[in-house]
Protein backbone atom coordinates (compact mmCIF):
# COMPACT_ATOMS: atom_id res chain seq x y z
CA UNK A 1 0.00 0.00 0.00
CA UNK A 2 1.47 3.34 -1.00
CA UNK A 3 1.97 6.08 1.51
CA UNK A 4 -0.38 8.39 -0.40
CA UNK A 5 -3.25 5.93 -0.35
CA UNK A 6 -2.86 5.20 3.35
CA UNK A 7 -3.06 8.88 4.12
CA UNK A 8 -6.10 9.60 2.00
CA UNK A 9 -9.11 10.57 4.14
CA UNK A 10 -11.33 7.88 2.63
CA UNK A 11 -8.82 5.15 3.36
CA UNK A 12 -8.41 6.41 6.92
CA UNK A 13 -12.09 6.26 7.54
CA UNK A 14 -12.32 2.71 6.18
CA UNK A 15 -9.45 1.58 8.39
CA UNK A 16 -11.00 3.30 11.38
CA UNK A 17 -14.32 1.60 10.60
CA UNK A 18 -12.73 -1.84 10.38
CA UNK A 19 -10.90 -1.13 13.59
CA UNK A 20 -14.22 -0.24 15.25
CA UNK A 21 -15.88 -3.43 14.01
CA UNK A 22 -13.01 -5.52 15.30
CA UNK A 23 -13.23 -3.83 18.70
CA UNK A 24 -16.98 -4.41 18.90
CA UNK A 25 -16.56 -8.06 17.94
CA UNK A 26 -14.01 -8.57 20.71
CA UNK A 27 -15.69 -6.51 23.39
CA UNK A 28 -17.68 -8.42 26.01
CA UNK A 29 -20.17 -5.54 25.98
CA UNK A 30 -20.38 -2.95 23.24
CA UNK A 31 -23.10 -0.33 23.11
CA UNK A 32 -23.70 2.03 20.20
CA UNK A 33 -26.05 5.03 20.13
CA UNK A 34 -28.06 3.84 23.13
CA UNK A 35 -30.92 6.11 24.18
CA UNK A 36 -33.34 5.22 26.99
CA UNK A 37 -36.18 7.34 28.30
CA UNK A 38 -38.67 6.76 31.12
CA UNK A 39 -40.66 9.90 30.43
CA UNK A 40 -40.04 12.84 28.15
CA UNK A 41 -36.47 13.42 29.27
CA UNK A 42 -33.94 10.77 28.27
CA UNK A 43 -32.17 8.97 31.13
CA UNK A 44 -29.40 7.83 28.79
CA UNK A 45 -28.74 9.72 25.55
CA UNK A 46 -26.89 8.36 22.53
CA UNK A 47 -24.25 6.52 24.54
CA UNK A 48 -21.39 4.52 23.04
CA UNK A 49 -19.49 2.17 25.32
CA UNK A 50 -16.89 -0.49 24.58
CA UNK A 51 -15.94 -2.65 27.56
CA UNK A 52 -12.40 -4.04 27.51
CA UNK A 53 -12.20 -7.84 27.85
CA UNK A 54 -10.66 -9.39 30.96
CA UNK A 55 -10.67 -6.16 32.96
CA UNK A 56 -12.65 -4.46 35.67
CA UNK A 57 -14.61 -1.40 34.59
CA UNK A 58 -16.46 1.05 36.84
CA UNK A 59 -19.47 2.98 35.56
CA UNK A 60 -19.56 6.20 37.55
CA UNK A 61 -21.54 9.41 37.52
CA UNK A 62 -23.78 11.48 39.78
CA UNK A 63 -27.17 10.31 41.07
CA UNK A 64 -29.70 10.11 38.27
CA UNK A 65 -26.97 10.12 35.62
CA UNK A 66 -28.28 6.92 34.04
CA UNK A 67 -25.67 4.46 35.36
CA UNK A 68 -28.12 1.72 36.31
CA UNK A 69 -30.31 2.48 33.31
CA UNK A 70 -27.35 1.99 31.00
CA UNK A 71 -26.73 -1.42 32.56
CA UNK A 72 -30.40 -2.41 32.48
CA UNK A 73 -30.78 -1.40 28.85
CA UNK A 74 -27.62 -3.29 27.92
CA UNK A 75 -29.17 -6.38 29.54
CA UNK A 76 -32.60 -5.94 27.97
CA UNK A 77 -34.30 -5.28 31.31
CA UNK A 78 -35.56 -1.92 30.08
CA UNK A 79 -36.27 -1.34 26.41
CA UNK A 80 -34.14 1.37 24.77
CA UNK A 81 -35.62 3.86 22.30
CA UNK A 82 -32.70 3.31 19.99
CA UNK A 83 -29.25 1.83 19.92
CA UNK A 84 -27.45 -1.45 19.48
CA UNK A 85 -25.99 -3.77 22.10
CA UNK A 86 -23.63 -6.65 21.38
CA UNK A 87 -22.19 -9.20 23.80
CA UNK A 88 -18.90 -10.65 22.53
CA UNK A 89 -19.89 -9.40 19.08
CA UNK A 90 -23.27 -11.17 19.01
CA UNK A 91 -26.80 -10.01 19.86
CA UNK A 92 -27.87 -10.28 23.50
CA UNK A 93 -30.51 -12.95 22.82
CA UNK A 94 -27.82 -15.42 21.68
CA UNK A 95 -25.45 -14.71 24.53
CA UNK A 96 -27.55 -14.83 27.69
CA UNK A 97 -25.68 -17.85 29.02
CA UNK A 98 -22.46 -15.80 29.06
CA UNK A 99 -23.87 -13.03 31.27
CA UNK A 100 -24.23 -12.89 35.04
CA UNK A 101 -26.11 -10.03 36.67
CA UNK A 102 -26.27 -8.71 40.23
CA UNK A 103 -29.20 -6.27 40.58
CA UNK A 104 -29.35 -3.56 43.22
CA UNK A 105 -30.03 -5.18 46.56
CA UNK A 106 -32.94 -2.84 47.26
CA UNK A 107 -34.70 -3.82 44.02
CA UNK A 108 -36.08 -7.07 45.40
CA UNK A 109 -38.38 -8.06 48.24
CA UNK A 110 -36.20 -9.77 50.86
CA UNK A 111 -39.31 -10.97 52.66
CA UNK A 112 -39.88 -13.42 49.81
CA UNK A 113 -40.37 -16.93 51.25
CA UNK A 114 -37.16 -18.59 50.21
CA UNK A 115 -33.82 -19.71 51.63
CA UNK A 116 -30.29 -18.59 50.82
CA UNK A 117 -29.45 -21.79 48.92
CA UNK A 118 -32.63 -21.45 46.81
CA UNK A 119 -31.59 -17.95 45.71
CA UNK A 120 -28.19 -19.24 44.60
CA UNK A 121 -29.87 -22.13 42.76
CA UNK A 122 -31.77 -19.50 40.74
CA UNK A 123 -28.45 -18.83 39.04
CA UNK A 124 -28.74 -22.34 37.56
CA UNK A 125 -32.30 -21.96 36.26
CA UNK A 126 -31.16 -21.29 32.69
CA UNK A 127 -29.22 -24.51 32.74
CA UNK A 128 -32.04 -26.43 34.43
CA UNK A 129 -34.72 -25.19 32.04
CA UNK A 130 -38.42 -25.13 32.88
CA UNK A 131 -38.73 -28.54 34.44
CA UNK A 132 -35.24 -30.01 35.00
CA UNK A 133 -34.74 -31.58 38.41
CA UNK A 134 -32.34 -29.99 40.85
CA UNK A 135 -29.80 -32.71 41.59
CA UNK A 136 -27.11 -33.18 44.21
CA UNK A 137 -24.39 -31.75 42.00
CA UNK A 138 -26.41 -28.57 41.47
CA UNK A 139 -26.72 -28.16 45.22
CA UNK A 140 -23.00 -28.83 45.63
CA UNK A 141 -22.21 -26.11 43.07
CA UNK A 142 -24.52 -23.65 44.80
CA UNK A 143 -22.86 -24.40 48.15
CA UNK A 144 -19.43 -23.94 46.57
CA UNK A 145 -20.47 -20.50 45.28
CA UNK A 146 -21.74 -19.62 48.76
CA UNK A 147 -18.45 -20.60 50.35
CA UNK A 148 -16.58 -18.42 47.82
CA UNK A 149 -18.39 -15.42 49.30
CA UNK A 150 -18.07 -16.75 52.86
CA UNK A 151 -21.79 -17.54 53.26
CA UNK A 152 -21.84 -21.35 53.29
CA UNK A 153 -22.98 -21.46 56.92
CA UNK A 154 -26.11 -19.50 56.04
CA UNK A 155 -27.38 -21.83 53.28
CA UNK A 156 -30.64 -22.79 54.98
CA UNK A 157 -31.46 -19.36 56.45
CA UNK A 158 -34.47 -17.43 55.27
CA UNK A 159 -33.16 -14.54 53.18
CA UNK A 160 -35.01 -11.92 55.24
CA UNK A 161 -32.87 -12.82 58.27
CA UNK A 162 -29.64 -11.66 56.61
CA UNK A 163 -27.91 -8.31 57.03
CA UNK A 164 -27.54 -6.04 54.01
CA UNK A 165 -23.96 -7.13 53.41
CA UNK A 166 -24.89 -10.79 53.66
CA UNK A 167 -27.74 -10.30 51.19
CA UNK A 168 -25.31 -8.68 48.76
CA UNK A 169 -22.93 -11.64 49.07
CA UNK A 170 -25.78 -14.08 48.37
CA UNK A 171 -26.56 -12.13 45.20
CA UNK A 172 -22.91 -12.37 44.19
CA UNK A 173 -22.95 -16.13 44.86
CA UNK A 174 -25.97 -16.44 42.56
CA UNK A 175 -24.05 -14.60 39.82
CA UNK A 176 -21.09 -16.95 40.36
CA UNK A 177 -23.43 -19.92 39.94
CA UNK A 178 -24.33 -18.58 36.50
CA UNK A 179 -20.77 -19.40 35.42
CA UNK A 180 -20.62 -16.49 32.98
CA UNK A 181 -17.86 -14.69 31.06
CA UNK A 182 -19.24 -11.21 31.69
CA UNK A 183 -20.33 -10.07 35.17
CA UNK A 184 -22.48 -6.96 35.53
CA UNK A 185 -23.07 -5.62 39.05
CA UNK A 186 -25.34 -2.74 39.99
CA UNK A 187 -24.04 -0.86 43.07
CA UNK A 188 -22.72 -3.97 44.88
CA UNK A 189 -21.00 -1.85 47.54
CA UNK A 190 -24.01 0.31 48.43
CA UNK A 191 -24.76 0.10 52.14
CA UNK A 192 -22.57 -2.91 52.91
CA UNK A 193 -20.11 -3.36 55.78
CA UNK A 194 -16.34 -3.15 55.28
CA UNK A 195 -15.87 -6.93 55.54
CA UNK A 196 -18.40 -7.52 52.77
CA UNK A 197 -16.80 -4.88 50.56
CA UNK A 198 -13.45 -6.64 50.95
CA UNK A 199 -14.98 -10.06 50.29
CA UNK A 200 -16.75 -8.82 47.15
CA UNK A 201 -13.72 -7.08 45.70
CA UNK A 202 -11.55 -10.13 46.26
CA UNK A 203 -14.09 -12.34 44.46
CA UNK A 204 -14.24 -9.85 41.57
CA UNK A 205 -10.44 -9.81 41.35
CA UNK A 206 -10.37 -13.61 41.25
CA UNK A 207 -12.86 -13.47 38.38
CA UNK A 208 -10.58 -11.06 36.53
CA UNK A 209 -7.62 -13.36 37.20
CA UNK A 210 -9.65 -16.16 35.57
CA UNK A 211 -10.02 -14.01 32.45
CA UNK A 212 -13.59 -12.85 33.11
CA UNK A 213 -14.83 -9.34 32.47
CA UNK A 214 -16.39 -7.35 35.31
CA UNK A 215 -18.50 -4.19 34.97
CA UNK A 216 -19.65 -2.43 38.14
CA UNK A 217 -21.97 0.51 38.64
CA UNK A 218 -20.06 2.31 41.37
CA UNK A 219 -20.73 5.37 43.47
CA UNK A 220 -17.68 5.74 45.68
CA UNK A 221 -15.19 7.91 43.80
CA UNK A 222 -12.56 7.39 46.49
CA UNK A 223 -12.09 3.69 45.67
CA UNK A 224 -12.21 3.87 41.87
CA UNK A 225 -8.46 3.99 41.36
CA UNK A 226 -7.87 1.24 43.91
CA UNK A 227 -10.42 -1.27 42.56
CA UNK A 228 -10.72 -0.73 38.83
CA UNK A 229 -8.71 -0.83 35.61
CA UNK A 230 -11.07 1.23 33.51
CA UNK A 231 -13.69 3.84 34.12
CA UNK A 232 -16.77 4.93 32.20
CA UNK A 233 -18.06 8.35 33.22
CA UNK A 234 -21.66 9.13 32.40
CA UNK A 235 -24.06 11.99 32.94
CA UNK A 236 -26.92 11.04 30.63
CA UNK A 237 -24.31 11.29 27.85
CA UNK A 238 -20.95 9.63 27.82
CA UNK A 239 -18.37 11.92 29.45
CA UNK A 240 -15.20 9.85 29.31
CA UNK A 241 -14.08 6.27 28.86
CA UNK A 242 -10.73 4.57 29.25
CA UNK A 243 -8.04 3.45 31.69
CA UNK A 244 -8.44 5.01 35.14
CA UNK A 245 -5.12 6.90 34.76
CA UNK A 246 -6.44 8.74 31.67
CA UNK A 247 -10.21 8.94 31.86
CA UNK A 248 -10.59 9.51 35.61
CA UNK A 249 -9.32 13.07 35.29
CA UNK A 250 -10.22 16.34 36.90
CA UNK A 251 -11.74 17.69 33.68
CA UNK A 252 -13.98 14.71 33.03
CA UNK A 253 -15.10 14.57 36.67
CA UNK A 254 -15.88 18.28 36.48
CA UNK A 255 -17.98 17.66 33.35
CA UNK A 256 -19.73 14.61 34.79
CA UNK A 257 -20.51 16.02 38.21
CA UNK A 258 -20.75 19.71 37.35
CA UNK A 259 -20.98 21.83 40.45
CA UNK A 260 -21.91 18.88 42.64
CA UNK A 261 -18.36 18.11 43.72
CA UNK A 262 -16.22 20.77 45.29
CA UNK A 263 -13.16 21.59 43.18
CA UNK A 264 -10.79 20.55 45.97
CA UNK A 265 -12.52 17.18 46.27
CA UNK A 266 -12.09 16.51 42.57
CA UNK A 267 -8.51 17.59 42.81
CA UNK A 268 -7.83 15.11 45.59
CA UNK A 269 -9.57 12.29 43.78
CA UNK A 270 -7.78 12.88 40.52
CA UNK A 271 -4.46 12.84 42.35
CA UNK A 272 -5.31 9.77 44.47
Amino acid sequence: MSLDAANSPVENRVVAGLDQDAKIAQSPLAVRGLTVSYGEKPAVFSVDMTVEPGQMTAIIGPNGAGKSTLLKAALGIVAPISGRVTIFGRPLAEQRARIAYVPQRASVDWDFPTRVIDVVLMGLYRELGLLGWIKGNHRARALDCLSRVGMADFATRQIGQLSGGQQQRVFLARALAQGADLYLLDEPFAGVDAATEKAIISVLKSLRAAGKTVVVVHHDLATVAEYFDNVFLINTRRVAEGPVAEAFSEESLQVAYGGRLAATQIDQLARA
Partner: protein
Amino acid sequence: MSGEEFVPLSLTPMLIGVFAAVACALPGNFLLLRRQALIGDAISHVVLPGIVVAFLLTGMISAWPMMLGAAGAAVVAVVLIEAIRRLGRIEPGAAMGVVFTTMFALGVLLLEQSDTSAVHLDVEHALYGNLESLIWLDATGWGSLLDPQALRYLPIELPRMALTLVGVCLFIALFWRALKISTFDEGFARTMGIRTNLLGLGLVITAAVAAVAAFDAVGSIIVIAMFICPAASARMMTNRLEAQIGWSVGFAVLAAVLGYVLAGYGPLWLGGQDAVSAAGMIATVSGGGLAVAAKCGPCRSRAGAPAGV
Protein backbone atom coordinates in the same frame (compact mmCIF):
# COMPACT_ATOMS: atom_id res chain seq x y z
CA MET B 1 -74.71 -39.11 57.86
CA SER B 2 -75.62 -41.88 55.45
CA GLY B 3 -74.47 -42.11 51.88
CA GLU B 4 -78.06 -41.88 50.61
CA GLU B 5 -78.33 -38.41 52.03
CA PHE B 6 -74.74 -37.20 51.74
CA VAL B 7 -73.92 -38.13 48.15
CA PRO B 8 -76.87 -36.44 46.39
CA LEU B 9 -77.11 -33.40 48.63
CA SER B 10 -73.67 -32.56 49.96
CA LEU B 11 -70.94 -34.36 48.02
CA THR B 12 -71.07 -32.35 44.81
CA PRO B 13 -71.39 -28.88 46.39
CA MET B 14 -68.58 -29.76 48.76
CA LEU B 15 -66.32 -30.95 45.95
CA ILE B 16 -67.13 -27.91 43.83
CA GLY B 17 -66.35 -25.69 46.81
CA VAL B 18 -63.04 -27.47 47.40
CA PHE B 19 -62.02 -27.31 43.73
CA ALA B 20 -62.96 -23.63 43.51
CA ALA B 21 -61.08 -22.79 46.70
CA VAL B 22 -57.91 -24.58 45.57
CA ALA B 23 -58.08 -23.19 42.01
CA CYS B 24 -58.21 -19.67 43.45
CA ALA B 25 -55.67 -20.23 46.24
CA LEU B 26 -52.91 -21.43 43.89
CA PRO B 27 -52.60 -18.28 41.76
CA GLY B 28 -53.47 -16.31 44.91
CA ASN B 29 -50.05 -17.20 46.35
CA PHE B 30 -48.25 -15.46 43.51
CA LEU B 31 -50.65 -12.52 43.37
CA LEU B 32 -50.04 -11.98 47.08
CA LEU B 33 -46.24 -12.13 46.79
CA ARG B 34 -46.35 -9.77 43.81
CA ARG B 35 -48.34 -7.26 45.85
CA GLN B 36 -51.21 -7.77 43.42
CA ALA B 37 -53.64 -9.36 45.85
CA LEU B 38 -56.44 -7.02 44.84
CA ILE B 39 -56.26 -8.14 41.21
CA GLY B 40 -58.64 -10.92 42.24
CA ASP B 41 -60.98 -8.28 43.62
CA ALA B 42 -60.73 -6.27 40.41
CA ILE B 43 -61.36 -9.30 38.20
CA SER B 44 -64.40 -10.45 40.10
CA HIS B 45 -65.99 -7.00 39.92
CA VAL B 46 -65.22 -6.32 36.30
CA VAL B 47 -66.38 -9.63 34.85
CA LEU B 48 -69.93 -9.47 36.25
CA PRO B 49 -71.45 -7.34 33.45
CA GLY B 50 -69.65 -9.57 30.92
CA ILE B 51 -71.22 -12.68 32.39
CA VAL B 52 -74.65 -11.06 32.48
CA VAL B 53 -74.43 -9.81 28.89
CA ALA B 54 -73.25 -13.25 27.77
CA PHE B 55 -76.28 -14.75 29.49
CA LEU B 56 -78.67 -12.23 27.93
CA LEU B 57 -77.30 -12.96 24.46
CA THR B 58 -77.27 -16.75 24.70
CA GLY B 59 -80.04 -17.32 27.20
CA MET B 60 -78.12 -19.87 29.15
CA ILE B 61 -75.42 -20.16 31.76
CA SER B 62 -72.68 -22.18 30.17
CA ALA B 63 -68.95 -22.11 30.25
CA TRP B 64 -67.81 -20.66 26.94
CA PRO B 65 -70.18 -17.70 26.64
CA MET B 66 -69.44 -16.83 30.26
CA MET B 67 -65.68 -16.96 29.72
CA LEU B 68 -65.95 -14.92 26.53
CA GLY B 69 -68.21 -12.38 28.19
CA ALA B 70 -65.83 -12.10 31.12
CA ALA B 71 -62.84 -11.68 28.83
CA GLY B 72 -64.69 -9.02 26.84
CA ALA B 73 -65.53 -7.15 30.02
CA ALA B 74 -61.89 -7.30 31.12
CA VAL B 75 -60.77 -5.78 27.82
CA VAL B 76 -63.40 -3.03 28.10
CA ALA B 77 -62.20 -2.33 31.64
CA VAL B 78 -58.57 -1.99 30.58
CA VAL B 79 -59.51 0.39 27.74
CA LEU B 80 -61.73 2.45 30.05
CA ILE B 81 -59.08 2.70 32.75
CA GLU B 82 -56.50 3.87 30.24
CA ALA B 83 -58.93 6.36 28.69
CA ILE B 84 -59.95 7.83 32.04
CA ARG B 85 -56.37 8.02 33.18
CA ARG B 86 -55.30 9.91 30.07
CA LEU B 87 -58.33 12.09 29.44
CA GLY B 88 -59.05 12.80 33.08
CA ARG B 89 -55.38 13.00 34.05
CA ILE B 90 -56.00 11.19 37.31
CA GLU B 91 -53.83 8.58 38.92
CA PRO B 92 -54.25 4.94 37.80
CA GLY B 93 -55.52 3.75 41.19
CA ALA B 94 -58.42 6.18 41.09
CA ALA B 95 -59.23 5.29 37.49
CA MET B 96 -59.31 1.60 38.38
CA GLY B 97 -61.51 2.17 41.41
CA VAL B 98 -64.03 4.07 39.34
CA VAL B 99 -64.10 1.54 36.49
CA PHE B 100 -64.37 -1.55 38.72
CA THR B 101 -67.23 -0.29 40.81
CA THR B 102 -69.09 1.21 37.86
CA MET B 103 -68.88 -1.95 35.82
CA PHE B 104 -69.94 -4.07 38.78
CA ALA B 105 -72.90 -1.78 39.45
CA LEU B 106 -73.84 -1.97 35.78
CA GLY B 107 -73.78 -5.75 36.01
CA VAL B 108 -76.07 -5.70 39.06
CA LEU B 109 -78.52 -3.33 37.34
CA LEU B 110 -78.59 -5.39 34.16
CA LEU B 111 -79.20 -8.52 36.16
CA GLU B 112 -82.01 -6.94 38.12
CA GLN B 113 -83.79 -5.67 35.04
CA SER B 114 -83.54 -8.81 32.94
CA ASP B 115 -85.75 -11.85 33.19
CA THR B 116 -83.60 -14.62 34.55
CA SER B 117 -86.31 -16.52 36.36
CA ALA B 118 -85.74 -19.60 34.22
CA VAL B 119 -82.20 -20.10 35.51
CA HIS B 120 -80.25 -19.65 38.67
CA LEU B 121 -78.97 -16.21 37.89
CA ASP B 122 -80.06 -13.29 39.98
CA VAL B 123 -78.42 -10.59 42.02
CA GLU B 124 -78.15 -12.75 45.10
CA HIS B 125 -76.57 -15.56 43.12
CA ALA B 126 -74.08 -13.18 41.56
CA LEU B 127 -73.05 -11.84 44.94
CA TYR B 128 -72.99 -14.94 47.14
CA GLY B 129 -73.02 -17.84 44.71
CA ASN B 130 -75.29 -20.80 44.76
CA LEU B 131 -73.28 -23.66 46.10
CA GLU B 132 -76.17 -25.36 47.90
CA SER B 133 -78.18 -25.75 44.70
CA LEU B 134 -75.48 -27.67 42.83
CA ILE B 135 -76.86 -30.98 44.00
CA TRP B 136 -76.84 -34.39 42.33
CA LEU B 137 -80.42 -35.67 42.54
CA ASP B 138 -79.79 -38.80 40.50
CA ALA B 139 -77.42 -40.18 43.08
CA THR B 140 -78.75 -42.69 45.53
CA GLY B 141 -75.60 -43.36 47.55
CA TRP B 142 -71.88 -43.98 47.21
CA GLY B 143 -72.60 -46.61 44.58
CA SER B 144 -73.78 -43.90 42.21
CA LEU B 145 -70.19 -42.80 41.75
CA LEU B 146 -69.73 -45.96 39.67
CA ASP B 147 -73.10 -45.79 37.95
CA PRO B 148 -72.76 -44.30 34.45
CA GLN B 149 -76.50 -43.56 34.32
CA ALA B 150 -76.35 -41.39 37.43
CA LEU B 151 -72.98 -39.87 36.53
CA ARG B 152 -74.52 -38.45 33.34
CA TYR B 153 -76.62 -36.15 35.49
CA LEU B 154 -73.78 -34.90 37.63
CA PRO B 155 -74.06 -31.10 37.86
CA ILE B 156 -72.07 -29.69 34.95
CA GLU B 157 -70.35 -27.28 37.34
CA LEU B 158 -68.40 -30.13 38.94
CA PRO B 159 -66.46 -31.33 35.88
CA ARG B 160 -66.09 -27.70 34.79
CA MET B 161 -64.53 -26.68 38.09
CA ALA B 162 -62.37 -29.82 38.15
CA LEU B 163 -61.10 -29.04 34.65
CA THR B 164 -60.34 -25.47 35.68
CA LEU B 165 -58.37 -26.74 38.64
CA VAL B 166 -56.37 -29.06 36.40
CA GLY B 167 -55.62 -26.11 34.09
CA VAL B 168 -54.52 -23.92 37.00
CA CYS B 169 -52.28 -26.69 38.36
CA LEU B 170 -50.72 -27.23 34.94
CA PHE B 171 -49.95 -23.53 34.54
CA ILE B 172 -48.33 -23.29 37.98
CA ALA B 173 -46.37 -26.54 37.57
CA LEU B 174 -45.13 -25.78 34.07
CA PHE B 175 -44.04 -22.23 34.85
CA TRP B 176 -43.09 -22.87 38.48
CA ARG B 177 -39.48 -21.79 38.17
CA ALA B 178 -40.23 -18.84 35.93
CA LEU B 179 -43.01 -17.65 38.25
CA LYS B 180 -40.82 -18.02 41.31
CA ILE B 181 -37.86 -16.11 39.94
CA SER B 182 -39.83 -13.37 38.22
CA THR B 183 -41.85 -12.80 41.39
CA PHE B 184 -38.71 -12.56 43.51
CA ASP B 185 -36.42 -10.69 41.12
CA GLU B 186 -37.97 -9.51 37.89
CA GLY B 187 -34.85 -7.82 36.53
CA PHE B 188 -32.76 -10.96 37.00
CA ALA B 189 -35.50 -13.06 35.39
CA ARG B 190 -35.41 -10.81 32.33
CA THR B 191 -31.65 -11.19 31.95
CA MET B 192 -32.27 -14.94 31.75
CA GLY B 193 -34.59 -14.35 28.81
CA ILE B 194 -37.84 -14.91 30.69
CA ARG B 195 -40.70 -12.84 29.19
CA THR B 196 -41.86 -11.49 32.53
CA ASN B 197 -44.64 -9.34 31.06
CA LEU B 198 -46.23 -12.30 29.30
CA LEU B 199 -45.83 -14.45 32.38
CA GLY B 200 -47.53 -11.82 34.56
CA LEU B 201 -50.37 -11.60 32.05
CA GLY B 202 -50.63 -15.40 32.04
CA LEU B 203 -50.93 -15.38 35.82
CA VAL B 204 -53.70 -12.77 35.76
CA ILE B 205 -55.56 -14.68 33.04
CA THR B 206 -55.26 -17.89 35.08
CA ALA B 207 -56.68 -16.09 38.10
CA ALA B 208 -59.49 -14.67 35.96
CA VAL B 209 -60.42 -18.09 34.59
CA ALA B 210 -60.50 -19.46 38.14
CA ALA B 211 -62.66 -16.54 39.28
CA VAL B 212 -65.17 -16.97 36.45
CA ALA B 213 -65.35 -20.73 36.94
CA ALA B 214 -65.90 -20.22 40.66
CA PHE B 215 -68.67 -17.72 39.94
CA ASP B 216 -71.39 -20.42 40.07
CA ALA B 217 -70.17 -21.71 43.37
CA VAL B 218 -69.38 -18.67 45.41
CA GLY B 219 -70.44 -15.62 43.42
CA SER B 220 -68.25 -12.74 42.49
CA ILE B 221 -67.64 -11.12 45.88
CA ILE B 222 -66.74 -13.97 48.15
CA VAL B 223 -64.28 -15.35 45.62
CA ILE B 224 -61.90 -12.59 46.76
CA ALA B 225 -61.53 -14.36 50.11
CA MET B 226 -60.58 -17.52 48.23
CA PHE B 227 -57.76 -15.72 46.45
CA ILE B 228 -56.28 -14.00 49.45
CA CYS B 229 -57.03 -15.77 52.73
CA PRO B 230 -55.45 -19.21 52.14
CA ALA B 231 -52.27 -17.70 50.64
CA ALA B 232 -51.96 -15.04 53.33
CA SER B 233 -52.49 -17.63 56.08
CA ALA B 234 -49.97 -19.97 54.46
CA ARG B 235 -47.33 -17.24 54.28
CA MET B 236 -47.41 -17.00 58.06
CA MET B 237 -46.85 -20.73 58.49
CA THR B 238 -43.62 -21.10 56.51
CA ASN B 239 -40.66 -19.30 54.97
CA ARG B 240 -40.44 -21.49 51.88
CA LEU B 241 -42.52 -20.94 48.77
CA GLU B 242 -42.92 -24.67 48.11
CA ALA B 243 -44.30 -25.23 51.60
CA GLN B 244 -46.42 -22.09 51.35
CA ILE B 245 -48.22 -23.53 48.32
CA GLY B 246 -48.90 -26.73 50.26
CA TRP B 247 -50.22 -24.85 53.29
CA SER B 248 -52.44 -22.67 51.12
CA VAL B 249 -54.05 -25.75 49.56
CA GLY B 250 -54.59 -27.14 53.05
CA PHE B 251 -56.20 -23.91 54.27
CA ALA B 252 -58.37 -23.74 51.13
CA VAL B 253 -59.65 -27.31 51.52
CA LEU B 254 -60.26 -26.84 55.22
CA ALA B 255 -62.19 -23.61 54.67
CA ALA B 256 -64.33 -25.15 51.91
CA VAL B 257 -65.24 -28.32 53.83
CA LEU B 258 -65.60 -26.77 57.24
CA GLY B 259 -67.46 -23.76 55.82
CA TYR B 260 -69.91 -25.96 53.96
CA VAL B 261 -70.58 -28.19 56.97
CA LEU B 262 -70.96 -25.25 59.35
CA ALA B 263 -73.32 -23.49 56.95
CA GLY B 264 -75.50 -26.57 56.64
CA TYR B 265 -75.51 -27.80 60.22
CA GLY B 266 -74.15 -24.99 62.36
CA PRO B 267 -77.50 -23.24 62.79
CA LEU B 268 -79.18 -26.57 63.67
CA TRP B 269 -76.55 -27.30 66.30
CA LEU B 270 -77.22 -23.89 67.75
CA GLY B 271 -80.93 -24.66 67.87
CA GLY B 272 -81.83 -22.62 64.80
CA GLN B 273 -83.91 -23.70 61.86
CA ASP B 274 -82.37 -22.77 58.50
CA ALA B 275 -78.98 -23.22 56.97
CA VAL B 276 -76.89 -20.14 56.18
CA SER B 277 -75.12 -19.27 52.91
CA ALA B 278 -72.39 -21.82 52.27
CA ALA B 279 -70.20 -19.36 50.35
CA GLY B 280 -70.54 -16.83 53.12
CA MET B 281 -69.54 -19.40 55.70
CA ILE B 282 -66.58 -20.58 53.60
CA ALA B 283 -65.30 -17.01 53.41
CA THR B 284 -65.88 -16.56 57.13
CA VAL B 285 -63.93 -19.71 57.93
CA SER B 286 -61.15 -18.53 55.56
CA GLY B 287 -60.99 -15.29 57.48
CA GLY B 288 -60.96 -17.20 60.77
CA GLY B 289 -58.07 -19.31 59.49
CA LEU B 290 -56.18 -16.16 58.62
CA ALA B 291 -56.82 -14.76 62.08
CA VAL B 292 -55.52 -17.93 63.72
CA ALA B 293 -52.44 -17.99 61.46
CA ALA B 294 -51.79 -14.32 62.21
CA LYS B 295 -51.98 -15.01 65.93
CA CYS B 296 -50.15 -18.34 66.10
CA GLY B 297 -48.25 -18.85 62.82
CA PRO B 298 -44.52 -19.44 63.34
CA CYS B 299 -43.47 -16.98 60.62
CA ARG B 300 -45.78 -14.10 61.42
CA SER B 301 -43.08 -11.66 62.51
CA ARG B 302 -40.63 -11.26 59.70
CA ALA B 303 -37.96 -8.80 58.74
CA GLY B 304 -40.08 -7.18 56.06
CA ALA B 305 -43.37 -7.31 57.89
CA PRO B 306 -44.73 -4.09 59.30
CA ALA B 307 -44.02 -3.71 63.00
CA GLY B 308 -46.67 -3.36 65.67
CA VAL B 309 -49.79 -5.20 66.77
